[in-house]
Protein backbone atom coordinates (compact mmCIF):
# COMPACT_ATOMS: atom_id res chain seq x y z
CA UNK A 1 0.00 0.00 0.00
CA UNK A 2 1.42 3.36 -1.08
CA UNK A 3 0.78 6.62 0.69
CA UNK A 4 -1.81 9.08 -0.52
CA UNK A 5 0.87 11.69 -1.06
CA UNK A 6 3.06 9.39 -3.17
CA UNK A 7 0.24 8.16 -5.38
CA UNK A 8 -1.15 11.65 -5.77
CA UNK A 9 2.24 12.79 -7.03
CA UNK A 10 2.49 9.81 -9.35
CA UNK A 11 -1.00 10.40 -10.71
CA UNK A 12 -0.38 14.10 -11.16
CA UNK A 13 2.79 13.44 -13.15
CA UNK A 14 1.17 10.76 -15.30
CA UNK A 15 -1.70 13.07 -16.05
CA UNK A 16 0.62 16.00 -16.74
CA UNK A 17 2.33 13.99 -19.45
CA UNK A 18 -1.03 12.86 -20.81
CA UNK A 19 -2.45 16.38 -20.97
CA UNK A 20 0.82 17.85 -22.20
CA UNK A 21 0.93 15.45 -25.15
CA UNK A 22 -2.77 15.77 -25.92
CA UNK A 23 -2.75 19.57 -25.86
CA UNK A 24 0.53 19.86 -27.76
CA UNK A 25 -0.81 17.58 -30.48
CA UNK A 26 -3.66 20.06 -30.83
CA UNK A 27 -1.10 22.87 -31.12
CA UNK A 28 0.66 20.81 -33.78
CA UNK A 29 -2.57 20.38 -35.73
CA UNK A 30 -3.16 24.11 -35.45
CA UNK A 31 0.26 24.84 -36.91
CA UNK A 32 1.91 26.19 -33.76
CA UNK A 33 4.35 23.28 -33.63
CA UNK A 34 6.28 22.05 -36.62
CA UNK A 35 8.77 19.28 -37.36
CA UNK A 36 8.57 15.87 -35.72
CA UNK A 37 6.52 15.13 -32.63
CA UNK A 38 6.67 11.62 -31.15
CA UNK A 39 3.93 11.25 -28.51
CA UNK A 40 4.57 9.31 -25.31
CA UNK A 41 0.85 8.54 -24.93
CA UNK A 42 0.34 5.11 -23.42
CA UNK A 43 3.89 4.77 -22.11
CA UNK A 44 3.69 7.30 -19.27
CA UNK A 45 4.04 4.77 -16.46
CA UNK A 46 7.63 4.01 -17.41
CA UNK A 47 9.01 7.54 -17.17
CA UNK A 48 6.99 8.28 -14.05
CA UNK A 49 7.77 5.00 -12.27
CA UNK A 50 11.49 5.27 -13.00
CA UNK A 51 11.90 8.94 -12.14
CA UNK A 52 9.93 8.53 -8.89
CA UNK A 53 12.83 6.37 -7.70
CA UNK A 54 15.57 8.84 -8.68
CA UNK A 55 17.15 11.71 -6.77
CA UNK A 56 18.59 15.03 -7.89
CA UNK A 57 22.06 13.51 -8.11
CA UNK A 58 21.05 10.94 -10.71
CA UNK A 59 21.27 11.35 -14.46
CA UNK A 60 18.90 10.38 -17.23
CA UNK A 61 19.22 10.28 -21.00
CA UNK A 62 16.11 10.33 -23.11
CA UNK A 63 14.94 9.54 -26.62
CA UNK A 64 13.16 11.05 -29.60
CA UNK A 65 9.94 10.13 -27.73
CA UNK A 66 11.16 12.12 -24.78
CA UNK A 67 8.56 14.56 -23.46
CA UNK A 68 7.45 12.12 -20.77
CA UNK A 69 10.99 11.62 -19.48
CA UNK A 70 11.53 15.37 -19.23
CA UNK A 71 8.29 15.97 -17.37
CA UNK A 72 8.80 13.03 -15.00
CA UNK A 73 12.31 14.34 -14.31
CA UNK A 74 10.84 17.64 -13.21
CA UNK A 75 11.22 19.81 -16.27
CA UNK A 76 9.71 23.28 -16.41
CA UNK A 77 6.58 23.11 -18.57
CA UNK A 78 6.81 26.72 -19.75
CA UNK A 79 10.28 26.08 -21.12
CA UNK A 80 9.24 22.76 -22.65
CA UNK A 81 6.26 24.10 -24.56
CA UNK A 82 8.18 27.24 -25.53
CA UNK A 83 10.81 24.95 -27.04
CA UNK A 84 8.21 22.98 -28.98
CA UNK A 85 7.04 26.29 -30.41
CA UNK A 86 10.62 27.29 -31.27
CA UNK A 87 10.61 30.21 -28.84
CA UNK A 88 13.55 31.99 -27.22
CA UNK A 89 12.82 30.96 -23.63
CA UNK A 90 12.48 27.32 -24.61
CA UNK A 91 14.96 24.87 -23.13
CA UNK A 92 17.11 25.19 -26.26
CA UNK A 93 16.20 28.79 -27.16
CA UNK A 94 14.22 27.33 -30.04
CA UNK A 95 17.29 25.76 -31.65
CA UNK A 96 16.55 22.17 -30.63
CA UNK A 97 12.85 21.45 -30.68
CA UNK A 98 11.09 18.31 -29.51
CA UNK A 99 13.95 15.88 -30.03
CA UNK A 100 16.70 17.84 -28.29
CA UNK A 101 15.31 19.04 -24.99
CA UNK A 102 17.89 18.70 -22.24
CA UNK A 103 18.27 20.17 -18.76
CA UNK A 104 21.75 19.38 -17.53
CA UNK A 105 21.11 21.35 -14.34
CA UNK A 106 18.53 18.69 -13.42
CA UNK A 107 20.56 15.74 -14.64
CA UNK A 108 18.61 15.38 -17.87
CA UNK A 109 21.37 14.88 -20.43
CA UNK A 110 19.04 15.17 -23.33
CA UNK A 111 16.54 13.67 -25.68
CA UNK A 112 18.06 12.35 -28.88
CA UNK A 113 17.10 12.27 -32.52
CA UNK A 114 19.26 9.22 -33.16
CA UNK A 115 17.78 5.94 -31.96
CA UNK A 116 20.19 4.19 -29.59
CA UNK A 117 22.64 7.08 -29.33
CA UNK A 118 21.68 7.88 -25.75
CA UNK A 119 22.95 4.52 -24.53
CA UNK A 120 26.69 5.23 -24.76
CA UNK A 121 26.07 8.76 -23.50
CA UNK A 122 24.32 7.34 -20.45
CA UNK A 123 27.18 4.88 -19.95
CA UNK A 124 29.55 7.86 -20.01
CA UNK A 125 27.55 9.70 -17.36
CA UNK A 126 27.63 6.56 -15.22
CA UNK A 127 31.39 6.37 -15.76
CA UNK A 128 31.71 10.00 -14.65
CA UNK A 129 29.82 9.28 -11.43
CA UNK A 130 31.93 6.21 -10.77
CA UNK A 131 35.21 8.11 -11.25
CA UNK A 132 33.98 10.88 -8.95
CA UNK A 133 32.53 8.37 -6.47
CA UNK A 134 29.17 10.17 -6.62
CA UNK A 135 26.29 8.44 -4.87
CA UNK A 136 24.33 8.34 -8.13
CA UNK A 137 23.01 6.16 -10.93
CA UNK A 138 22.34 6.96 -14.56
CA UNK A 139 19.18 5.81 -16.28
CA UNK A 140 19.09 5.63 -20.06
CA UNK A 141 15.63 5.37 -21.54
CA UNK A 142 15.77 3.42 -24.75
CA UNK A 143 13.60 1.05 -26.72
CA UNK A 144 13.05 -2.21 -28.53
CA UNK A 145 13.99 -0.42 -31.74
CA UNK A 146 17.32 0.73 -30.28
CA UNK A 147 18.09 -2.82 -29.16
CA UNK A 148 18.87 -3.64 -32.78
CA UNK A 149 21.38 -0.85 -33.08
CA UNK A 150 25.06 -1.72 -32.64
CA UNK A 151 25.70 0.62 -29.75
CA UNK A 152 23.08 -1.19 -27.64
CA UNK A 153 25.26 -4.29 -27.37
CA UNK A 154 28.54 -2.38 -27.32
CA UNK A 155 27.56 0.08 -24.65
CA UNK A 156 25.74 -2.35 -22.38
CA UNK A 157 28.78 -4.61 -22.58
CA UNK A 158 31.00 -1.65 -21.72
CA UNK A 159 28.87 -0.83 -18.69
CA UNK A 160 29.08 -4.46 -17.59
CA UNK A 161 32.83 -4.73 -18.15
CA UNK A 162 33.31 -1.61 -16.01
CA UNK A 163 30.63 -2.45 -13.34
CA UNK A 164 28.94 0.90 -13.87
CA UNK A 165 25.92 2.22 -11.92
CA UNK A 166 23.89 2.26 -15.10
CA UNK A 167 20.26 1.29 -15.64
CA UNK A 168 19.11 0.70 -19.18
CA UNK A 169 15.34 0.96 -19.42
CA UNK A 170 14.04 -0.54 -22.64
CA UNK A 171 10.59 0.77 -23.36
CA UNK A 172 9.44 -2.16 -25.42
CA UNK A 173 6.42 -0.73 -27.22
CA UNK A 174 6.71 -3.61 -29.66
CA UNK A 175 7.04 -1.54 -32.81
CA UNK A 176 10.06 0.14 -34.35
CA UNK A 177 8.31 2.88 -36.34
CA UNK A 178 5.91 0.48 -38.11
CA UNK A 179 7.82 -2.82 -37.95
CA UNK A 180 6.62 -5.23 -35.28
CA UNK A 181 9.32 -6.62 -33.02
CA UNK A 182 8.82 -10.20 -34.18
CA UNK A 183 9.89 -9.16 -37.67
CA UNK A 184 13.09 -7.50 -36.50
CA UNK A 185 14.44 -10.07 -34.10
CA UNK A 186 14.02 -13.79 -33.43
CA UNK A 187 14.05 -13.55 -29.63
CA UNK A 188 11.40 -11.00 -28.68
CA UNK A 189 12.18 -11.12 -24.97
CA UNK A 190 14.89 -8.47 -24.94
CA UNK A 191 15.62 -9.20 -21.31
CA UNK A 192 17.67 -12.16 -22.52
CA UNK A 193 20.12 -9.89 -24.26
CA UNK A 194 21.02 -8.35 -20.94
CA UNK A 195 21.38 -11.77 -19.35
CA UNK A 196 23.67 -12.88 -22.18
CA UNK A 197 26.07 -10.08 -21.22
CA UNK A 198 26.03 -11.02 -17.55
CA UNK A 199 23.75 -8.10 -16.69
CA UNK A 200 20.97 -8.46 -14.11
CA UNK A 201 17.83 -8.04 -16.16
CA UNK A 202 14.11 -7.70 -15.51
CA UNK A 203 11.08 -7.99 -17.78
CA UNK A 204 8.12 -6.11 -16.37
CA UNK A 205 4.71 -4.65 -17.11
CA UNK A 206 5.53 -1.17 -18.35
CA UNK A 207 1.97 0.00 -17.87
CA UNK A 208 2.04 -0.64 -14.14
CA UNK A 209 3.66 2.39 -12.60
CA UNK A 210 4.22 0.69 -9.25
CA UNK A 211 5.95 -2.29 -10.81
CA UNK A 212 8.20 0.09 -12.72
CA UNK A 213 8.93 2.04 -9.54
CA UNK A 214 9.73 -1.05 -7.45
CA UNK A 215 11.94 -2.53 -10.18
CA UNK A 216 13.84 0.72 -10.53
CA UNK A 217 14.39 0.87 -6.76
CA UNK A 218 15.75 -2.67 -6.90
CA UNK A 219 17.97 -1.75 -9.86
CA UNK A 220 19.36 1.20 -7.91
CA UNK A 221 20.03 -1.08 -4.94
CA UNK A 222 21.87 -3.53 -7.20
CA UNK A 223 23.96 -0.70 -8.67
CA UNK A 224 24.89 0.59 -5.22
CA UNK A 225 25.16 -2.55 -3.10
CA UNK A 226 26.17 -5.16 -5.65
CA UNK A 227 27.28 -3.97 -9.05
CA UNK A 228 25.63 -2.56 -12.13
CA UNK A 229 24.54 -2.29 -14.78
CA UNK A 230 20.90 -3.42 -14.75
CA UNK A 231 18.57 -3.84 -17.70
CA UNK A 232 14.82 -3.32 -17.32
CA UNK A 233 12.62 -4.33 -20.21
CA UNK A 234 9.30 -2.56 -19.65
CA UNK A 235 6.68 -3.93 -22.00
CA UNK A 236 4.18 -1.34 -23.17
CA UNK A 237 2.32 -0.06 -26.22
CA UNK A 238 1.84 3.23 -28.02
CA UNK A 239 -1.66 4.65 -28.15
CA UNK A 240 -1.01 5.79 -31.72
CA UNK A 241 1.47 5.99 -34.55
CA UNK A 242 5.20 6.63 -34.46
CA UNK A 243 4.67 10.39 -34.69
CA UNK A 244 1.67 12.69 -34.94
CA UNK A 245 1.39 12.34 -38.70
CA UNK A 246 1.47 8.55 -38.58
CA UNK A 247 -2.05 7.17 -38.01
CA UNK A 248 -0.54 3.87 -36.84
CA UNK A 249 -2.88 1.74 -38.93
CA UNK A 250 -0.47 -1.18 -38.57
CA UNK A 251 -1.12 -1.44 -34.81
CA UNK A 252 -3.22 -4.54 -34.22
CA UNK A 253 -6.68 -3.65 -32.89
CA UNK A 254 -6.86 -6.39 -30.27
CA UNK A 255 -3.41 -5.43 -28.97
CA UNK A 256 -4.34 -1.78 -28.82
CA UNK A 257 -7.62 -2.57 -27.06
CA UNK A 258 -5.78 -4.69 -24.54
CA UNK A 259 -3.30 -1.96 -23.71
CA UNK A 260 -5.99 0.71 -23.68
CA UNK A 261 -7.70 -1.36 -20.99
CA UNK A 262 -4.43 -1.13 -19.03
CA UNK A 263 -4.08 2.60 -19.46
CA UNK A 264 -1.48 3.82 -16.96
CA UNK A 265 -3.25 7.07 -16.15
CA UNK A 266 -6.58 5.32 -15.52
CA UNK A 267 -4.75 2.70 -13.48
CA UNK A 268 -3.37 5.31 -11.07
CA UNK A 269 -6.64 7.20 -10.92
CA UNK A 270 -8.48 4.01 -10.00
CA UNK A 271 -5.89 3.26 -7.32
CA UNK A 272 -6.46 6.66 -5.75
CA UNK A 273 -10.19 6.11 -5.60
CA UNK A 274 -10.50 2.37 -4.95
CA UNK A 275 -7.46 1.73 -2.77
CA UNK A 276 -6.80 5.07 -1.12
CA UNK A 277 -10.40 6.23 -0.79
CA UNK A 278 -10.18 9.57 -2.58
CA UNK A 279 -13.54 10.71 -3.90
CA UNK A 280 -14.17 11.81 -7.49
CA UNK A 281 -14.11 15.48 -6.66
CA UNK A 282 -10.72 15.23 -4.97
CA UNK A 283 -9.29 13.60 -8.10
CA UNK A 284 -11.00 16.15 -10.31
CA UNK A 285 -9.28 18.85 -8.34
CA UNK A 286 -5.93 17.37 -9.32
CA UNK A 287 -7.14 17.16 -12.92
CA UNK A 288 -8.07 20.81 -12.98
CA UNK A 289 -4.72 21.88 -11.47
CA UNK A 290 -2.89 19.95 -14.18
CA UNK A 291 -5.09 21.30 -16.95
CA UNK A 292 -4.64 24.84 -15.74
CA UNK A 293 -0.88 24.43 -15.53
CA UNK A 294 -0.64 23.23 -19.13
CA UNK A 295 -3.01 25.96 -20.26
CA UNK A 296 -0.80 28.59 -18.60
CA UNK A 297 2.34 27.13 -20.13
CA UNK A 298 0.78 27.18 -23.59
CA UNK A 299 -0.16 30.80 -23.02
CA UNK A 300 3.40 31.58 -21.94
CA UNK A 301 4.86 29.82 -24.96
CA UNK A 302 2.55 31.50 -27.43
CA UNK A 303 3.46 34.93 -26.09
CA UNK A 304 7.16 34.25 -25.82
CA UNK A 305 9.39 35.83 -28.50
CA UNK A 306 11.83 34.24 -30.89
CA UNK A 307 15.59 34.45 -31.18
CA UNK A 308 16.33 37.09 -33.80
CA UNK A 309 18.53 36.32 -36.78
CA UNK A 310 21.02 38.80 -35.36
CA UNK A 311 21.13 36.94 -32.05
CA UNK A 312 21.46 33.68 -33.93
CA UNK A 313 24.38 34.89 -36.02
CA UNK A 314 26.09 36.03 -32.83
CA UNK A 315 25.42 32.64 -31.25
CA UNK A 316 27.06 30.74 -34.11
CA UNK A 317 30.01 33.03 -34.67
CA UNK A 318 32.49 30.53 -33.27
CA UNK A 319 31.18 27.59 -35.22
Amino acid at each position, binding site marked *: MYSKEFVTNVYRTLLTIRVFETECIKLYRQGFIRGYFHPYLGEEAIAVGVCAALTDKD*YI*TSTHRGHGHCIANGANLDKMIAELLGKKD*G*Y*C*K*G*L*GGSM*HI*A*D*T*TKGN*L*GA*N*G*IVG*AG*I*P*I*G*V*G*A*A*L*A*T*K*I*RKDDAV*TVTFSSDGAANN*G*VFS*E*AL*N*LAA*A*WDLPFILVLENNQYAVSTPIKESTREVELVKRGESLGVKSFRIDGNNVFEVYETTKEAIRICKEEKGPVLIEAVTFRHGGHHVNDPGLYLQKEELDYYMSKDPVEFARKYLIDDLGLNESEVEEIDSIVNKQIEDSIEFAKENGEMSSKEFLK*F*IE*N*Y
Partner: protein
Amino acid sequence: MKELMYREALNHALLEEMRSDDTVFIMGEGIAERGGSFKVTVDLLKEFGSQRVIDTPISEASFTGAGVGAAIAGMKPVVEILFSDFTMLIMDQLVNQAAKFNFMTGGAGKVPMVLRTQGGVGNGLAAQHSQSLEAIFYHIPGLKLVMPSTPKDAKGLLKAAIRDDNPVIFLEHKLLYMNKGLVPDGDYIIELGKADVKKEGSDVTIIAWSNMLIRSLAAAEKLEEQGISVEVVDPRTLVPLDKETILESVRKTEHVVIVQEAIRRGGIGSDIASIIQEEAFDYLNAPIKIVAGLNTPVPFNLNLEKIVVPQEEDIISAVQNLVGVYQE
Protein backbone atom coordinates in the same frame (compact mmCIF):
# COMPACT_ATOMS: atom_id res chain seq x y z
CA MET B 1 63.84 24.30 -22.68
CA LYS B 2 64.30 20.61 -23.00
CA GLU B 3 64.57 18.40 -26.05
CA LEU B 4 61.65 15.98 -26.20
CA MET B 5 60.10 13.64 -28.70
CA TYR B 6 56.63 14.56 -30.00
CA ARG B 7 55.15 11.59 -28.15
CA GLU B 8 56.91 12.60 -24.92
CA ALA B 9 55.61 16.13 -25.25
CA LEU B 10 52.07 14.75 -25.59
CA ASN B 11 52.67 12.52 -22.59
CA HIS B 12 53.80 15.52 -20.51
CA ALA B 13 50.71 17.47 -21.54
CA LEU B 14 48.45 14.64 -20.35
CA LEU B 15 50.45 14.19 -17.16
CA GLU B 16 50.33 17.87 -16.24
CA GLU B 17 46.64 18.31 -17.04
CA MET B 18 45.70 15.16 -15.12
CA ARG B 19 47.72 16.38 -12.14
CA SER B 20 46.13 19.80 -12.12
CA ASP B 21 42.53 18.76 -12.87
CA ASP B 22 40.87 15.69 -11.31
CA THR B 23 38.16 15.67 -13.95
CA VAL B 24 40.63 14.85 -16.73
CA PHE B 25 40.77 11.14 -17.54
CA ILE B 26 41.86 9.15 -20.57
CA MET B 27 40.53 6.08 -22.28
CA GLY B 28 41.29 4.06 -25.36
CA GLU B 29 42.52 0.74 -26.65
CA GLY B 30 45.65 -0.50 -24.94
CA ILE B 31 46.52 2.86 -23.39
CA ALA B 32 46.89 1.80 -19.76
CA GLU B 33 49.42 -0.93 -18.96
CA ARG B 34 50.69 -0.97 -22.54
CA GLY B 35 50.99 2.81 -22.72
CA GLY B 36 49.41 3.04 -26.17
CA SER B 37 50.57 1.81 -29.54
CA PHE B 38 52.63 4.96 -30.00
CA LYS B 39 53.72 5.19 -26.35
CA VAL B 40 51.94 8.48 -25.72
CA THR B 41 50.31 7.33 -22.49
CA VAL B 42 53.21 5.43 -20.89
CA ASP B 43 53.41 5.51 -17.10
CA LEU B 44 50.13 7.39 -16.66
CA LEU B 45 48.43 4.31 -15.23
CA LYS B 46 51.09 4.13 -12.51
CA GLU B 47 50.35 7.63 -11.28
CA PHE B 48 46.59 7.90 -11.84
CA GLY B 49 45.29 4.35 -11.54
CA SER B 50 42.74 2.44 -13.56
CA GLN B 51 39.86 4.80 -12.70
CA ARG B 52 41.42 7.58 -14.78
CA VAL B 53 43.52 5.63 -17.28
CA ILE B 54 41.06 3.24 -18.82
CA ASP B 55 41.58 0.43 -21.31
CA THR B 56 38.51 -0.05 -23.47
CA PRO B 57 37.04 -2.94 -25.41
CA ILE B 58 37.17 -2.57 -29.20
CA SER B 59 33.89 -0.64 -29.20
CA GLU B 60 34.88 2.70 -30.68
CA ALA B 61 31.38 4.08 -31.17
CA SER B 62 30.43 3.33 -27.60
CA PHE B 63 33.53 4.37 -25.71
CA THR B 64 33.59 7.60 -27.68
CA GLY B 65 29.93 8.01 -26.77
CA ALA B 66 30.87 7.32 -23.16
CA GLY B 67 33.38 10.14 -23.48
CA VAL B 68 30.62 12.42 -24.75
CA GLY B 69 28.35 11.42 -21.86
CA ALA B 70 31.09 11.85 -19.27
CA ALA B 71 31.92 15.27 -20.71
CA ILE B 72 28.29 16.38 -20.57
CA ALA B 73 28.22 15.12 -16.98
CA GLY B 74 31.13 17.34 -15.95
CA MET B 75 34.31 15.41 -16.75
CA LYS B 76 37.08 16.20 -19.25
CA PRO B 77 37.74 12.97 -21.08
CA VAL B 78 40.60 12.49 -23.51
CA VAL B 79 39.52 9.65 -25.77
CA GLU B 80 42.13 7.94 -27.92
CA ILE B 81 41.17 6.32 -31.21
CA LEU B 82 44.13 4.26 -32.33
CA PHE B 83 43.94 5.17 -36.03
CA SER B 84 41.99 8.04 -37.54
CA ASP B 85 40.62 5.48 -39.98
CA PHE B 86 38.69 3.97 -37.04
CA THR B 87 36.94 7.26 -36.41
CA MET B 88 34.62 6.22 -39.20
CA LEU B 89 33.05 3.96 -36.57
CA ILE B 90 32.28 6.83 -34.22
CA MET B 91 30.68 9.31 -36.55
CA ASP B 92 27.25 9.41 -34.92
CA GLN B 93 28.67 10.15 -31.50
CA LEU B 94 31.05 12.73 -32.91
CA VAL B 95 28.95 14.43 -35.55
CA ASN B 96 25.39 14.09 -34.29
CA GLN B 97 26.10 14.15 -30.57
CA ALA B 98 29.36 15.82 -29.49
CA ALA B 99 29.47 18.47 -32.20
CA LYS B 100 25.83 19.50 -31.82
CA PHE B 101 25.02 19.21 -28.12
CA ASN B 102 26.01 22.75 -27.23
CA PHE B 103 24.09 24.10 -30.21
CA MET B 104 21.00 21.96 -29.77
CA THR B 105 20.71 22.96 -26.12
CA GLY B 106 20.90 26.63 -27.02
CA GLY B 107 24.35 26.91 -25.48
CA ALA B 108 23.40 25.36 -22.14
CA GLY B 109 25.17 22.00 -22.54
CA LYS B 110 28.90 21.52 -23.00
CA VAL B 111 31.05 18.67 -24.29
CA PRO B 112 34.63 19.37 -23.17
CA MET B 113 36.09 16.24 -24.75
CA VAL B 114 39.34 15.76 -26.63
CA LEU B 115 39.51 13.03 -29.21
CA ARG B 116 43.14 12.12 -29.86
CA THR B 117 43.89 10.08 -32.93
CA GLN B 118 46.59 9.80 -35.57
CA GLY B 119 46.60 9.56 -39.33
CA GLY B 120 48.75 9.74 -42.41
CA VAL B 121 50.89 7.36 -44.41
CA GLY B 122 53.98 5.66 -43.10
CA ASN B 123 55.24 2.19 -42.33
CA GLY B 124 53.28 0.48 -45.11
CA LEU B 125 49.99 0.25 -43.29
CA ALA B 126 47.86 0.37 -46.45
CA ALA B 127 44.41 1.74 -47.17
CA GLN B 128 42.64 1.32 -43.80
CA HIS B 129 45.44 2.60 -41.56
CA SER B 130 46.97 5.49 -43.52
CA GLN B 131 44.27 8.01 -44.30
CA SER B 132 44.33 11.76 -43.78
CA LEU B 133 40.69 12.41 -42.95
CA GLU B 134 40.88 15.90 -41.50
CA ALA B 135 38.54 17.37 -44.12
CA ILE B 136 35.70 15.28 -42.70
CA PHE B 137 36.09 16.82 -39.26
CA TYR B 138 36.77 20.28 -40.74
CA HIS B 139 33.37 20.10 -42.41
CA ILE B 140 31.42 19.62 -39.18
CA PRO B 141 30.34 22.77 -37.31
CA GLY B 142 30.89 22.36 -33.59
CA LEU B 143 34.19 20.49 -33.75
CA LYS B 144 37.59 22.09 -33.34
CA LEU B 145 40.47 20.57 -35.26
CA VAL B 146 44.10 20.63 -34.15
CA MET B 147 47.03 19.16 -36.12
CA PRO B 148 50.35 19.87 -34.43
CA SER B 149 53.63 19.46 -36.29
CA THR B 150 56.26 19.90 -33.56
CA PRO B 151 56.76 18.64 -29.99
CA LYS B 152 56.40 22.17 -28.61
CA ASP B 153 53.11 22.73 -30.43
CA ALA B 154 51.91 19.25 -29.56
CA LYS B 155 52.23 19.87 -25.84
CA GLY B 156 50.89 23.41 -25.74
CA LEU B 157 47.99 22.66 -28.03
CA LEU B 158 46.97 19.47 -26.24
CA LYS B 159 46.85 21.31 -22.94
CA ALA B 160 44.74 24.04 -24.52
CA ALA B 161 42.48 21.44 -26.12
CA ILE B 162 41.88 19.72 -22.78
CA ARG B 163 40.95 23.06 -21.18
CA ASP B 164 38.59 23.96 -24.03
CA ASP B 165 34.83 23.68 -23.45
CA ASN B 166 34.18 22.22 -26.91
CA PRO B 167 34.88 18.86 -28.50
CA VAL B 168 38.35 19.01 -30.06
CA ILE B 169 39.72 16.58 -32.62
CA PHE B 170 43.44 16.35 -31.92
CA LEU B 171 44.93 14.73 -34.99
CA GLU B 172 48.50 13.51 -34.68
CA HIS B 173 50.66 11.96 -37.40
CA LYS B 174 52.23 8.54 -37.08
CA LEU B 175 55.54 9.70 -38.59
CA LEU B 176 55.94 12.53 -36.08
CA TYR B 177 55.98 10.62 -32.78
CA MET B 178 59.76 10.11 -32.71
CA ASN B 179 60.61 13.62 -33.96
CA LYS B 180 62.55 15.68 -31.43
CA GLY B 181 62.30 19.35 -30.67
CA LEU B 182 62.81 21.91 -27.94
CA VAL B 183 59.91 22.19 -25.54
CA PRO B 184 59.56 24.93 -22.90
CA ASP B 185 59.73 23.72 -19.30
CA GLY B 186 56.61 23.48 -17.21
CA ASP B 187 53.12 24.72 -17.83
CA TYR B 188 52.37 26.61 -21.03
CA ILE B 189 49.53 26.53 -23.50
CA ILE B 190 49.24 27.49 -27.14
CA GLU B 191 45.92 29.12 -27.83
CA LEU B 192 43.73 27.33 -30.39
CA GLY B 193 43.31 29.43 -33.53
CA LYS B 194 46.81 30.90 -33.65
CA ALA B 195 48.95 30.04 -36.66
CA ASP B 196 52.71 30.03 -36.42
CA VAL B 197 55.15 31.31 -39.02
CA LYS B 198 57.65 28.49 -38.80
CA LYS B 199 60.08 30.15 -41.19
CA GLU B 200 60.11 33.69 -42.51
CA GLY B 201 60.67 34.47 -46.19
CA SER B 202 59.71 36.96 -48.86
CA ASP B 203 59.14 35.27 -52.24
CA VAL B 204 56.51 32.63 -51.62
CA THR B 205 54.27 31.39 -48.80
CA ILE B 206 53.89 27.70 -48.14
CA ILE B 207 50.92 26.79 -45.96
CA ALA B 208 51.23 23.30 -44.50
CA TRP B 209 50.39 21.41 -41.32
CA SER B 210 51.25 18.19 -39.53
CA ASN B 211 53.87 16.08 -41.30
CA MET B 212 53.64 18.18 -44.48
CA LEU B 213 54.87 21.14 -42.44
CA ILE B 214 58.07 19.24 -41.65
CA ARG B 215 58.44 18.26 -45.29
CA SER B 216 57.79 21.84 -46.42
CA LEU B 217 60.47 23.18 -44.09
CA ALA B 218 62.99 20.76 -45.59
CA ALA B 219 61.91 21.84 -49.08
CA ALA B 220 62.17 25.51 -48.08
CA GLU B 221 65.75 25.04 -46.97
CA LYS B 222 66.75 23.63 -50.38
CA LEU B 223 64.83 26.40 -52.16
CA GLU B 224 66.75 29.00 -50.15
CA GLU B 225 69.96 27.53 -51.58
CA GLN B 226 68.50 28.22 -55.02
CA GLY B 227 67.81 31.81 -54.06
CA ILE B 228 64.07 31.50 -53.43
CA SER B 229 63.04 32.93 -50.07
CA VAL B 230 60.20 30.85 -48.66
CA GLU B 231 57.87 31.67 -45.77
CA VAL B 232 56.32 28.62 -44.13
CA VAL B 233 53.05 29.09 -42.24
CA ASP B 234 51.70 26.39 -39.95
CA PRO B 235 48.02 26.99 -39.15
CA ARG B 236 48.37 24.42 -36.29
CA THR B 237 44.64 24.52 -35.75
CA LEU B 238 42.46 24.21 -38.82
CA VAL B 239 39.31 24.99 -36.83
CA PRO B 240 39.45 27.71 -35.74
CA LEU B 241 41.61 28.87 -38.64
CA ASP B 242 43.89 31.86 -38.16
CA LYS B 243 43.03 33.58 -41.42
CA GLU B 244 44.81 36.79 -40.48
CA THR B 245 48.28 35.27 -40.17
CA ILE B 246 47.78 33.44 -43.47
CA LEU B 247 46.54 36.54 -45.29
CA GLU B 248 49.34 38.67 -43.85
CA SER B 249 51.91 36.29 -45.28
CA VAL B 250 50.10 36.17 -48.63
CA ARG B 251 50.04 39.95 -48.82
CA LYS B 252 53.80 39.95 -48.20
CA THR B 253 54.94 37.23 -50.64
CA GLU B 254 52.12 37.37 -53.19
CA HIS B 255 52.65 33.67 -54.02
CA VAL B 256 51.01 30.73 -52.31
CA VAL B 257 51.59 27.00 -52.27
CA ILE B 258 49.33 24.94 -50.02
CA VAL B 259 50.59 21.48 -49.14
CA GLN B 260 48.32 18.78 -47.73
CA GLU B 261 48.80 15.07 -47.35
CA ALA B 262 45.09 14.41 -47.70
CA ILE B 263 43.65 13.81 -51.14
CA ARG B 264 42.98 16.89 -53.22
CA ARG B 265 39.23 16.46 -53.73
CA GLY B 266 37.17 18.29 -51.14
CA GLY B 267 40.24 19.08 -49.11
CA ILE B 268 41.07 21.78 -46.57
CA GLY B 269 43.69 23.17 -48.95
CA SER B 270 40.94 24.00 -51.43
CA ASP B 271 39.01 25.83 -48.74
CA ILE B 272 42.04 27.83 -47.63
CA ALA B 273 42.69 28.70 -51.30
CA SER B 274 39.12 29.92 -51.64
CA ILE B 275 39.50 32.12 -48.57
CA ILE B 276 42.73 33.62 -49.93
CA GLN B 277 41.32 34.37 -53.37
CA GLU B 278 38.28 35.97 -51.82
CA GLU B 279 40.13 38.09 -49.27
CA ALA B 280 43.52 38.76 -50.88
CA PHE B 281 42.92 38.34 -54.61
CA ASP B 282 44.51 41.65 -55.50
CA TYR B 283 47.77 40.64 -53.85
CA LEU B 284 48.23 37.39 -55.77
CA ASN B 285 50.77 37.40 -58.57
CA ALA B 286 50.04 33.84 -59.66
CA PRO B 287 47.37 31.21 -59.18
CA ILE B 288 47.42 29.45 -55.83
CA LYS B 289 49.08 26.05 -56.15
CA ILE B 290 47.79 23.12 -54.13
CA VAL B 291 50.12 20.17 -53.67
CA ALA B 292 47.99 17.34 -52.35
CA GLY B 293 47.56 13.60 -52.14
CA LEU B 294 46.20 11.82 -55.19
CA ASN B 295 42.50 10.95 -55.25
CA THR B 296 43.06 7.34 -54.26
CA PRO B 297 43.15 4.99 -51.29
CA VAL B 298 46.70 4.52 -50.00
CA PRO B 299 48.49 1.55 -51.61
CA PHE B 300 50.62 -0.89 -49.61
CA ASN B 301 53.62 -1.01 -51.97
CA LEU B 302 56.25 1.46 -50.73
CA ASN B 303 57.05 3.07 -54.09
CA LEU B 304 53.39 3.50 -54.84
CA GLU B 305 52.73 4.82 -51.35
CA LYS B 306 55.32 7.54 -52.06
CA ILE B 307 53.64 8.74 -55.21
CA VAL B 308 50.20 9.19 -53.66
CA VAL B 309 51.29 11.79 -51.08
CA PRO B 310 53.42 14.91 -51.63
CA GLN B 311 57.17 14.39 -51.30
CA GLU B 312 59.83 17.02 -50.74
CA GLU B 313 60.61 17.12 -54.49
CA ASP B 314 56.96 17.76 -55.30
CA ILE B 315 56.92 20.77 -52.99
CA ILE B 316 60.20 22.08 -54.41
CA SER B 317 59.05 21.82 -58.00
CA ALA B 318 55.67 23.39 -57.20
CA VAL B 319 57.43 26.41 -55.70
CA GLN B 320 59.93 26.61 -58.59
CA ASN B 321 57.14 26.53 -61.14
CA LEU B 322 55.13 29.14 -59.30
CA VAL B 323 58.02 31.56 -58.97
CA GLY B 324 59.11 30.71 -62.52
CA VAL B 325 55.70 31.67 -63.88
CA TYR B 326 56.12 34.95 -62.13
CA GLN B 327 59.65 35.56 -63.43
CA GLU B 328 58.66 34.88 -67.03
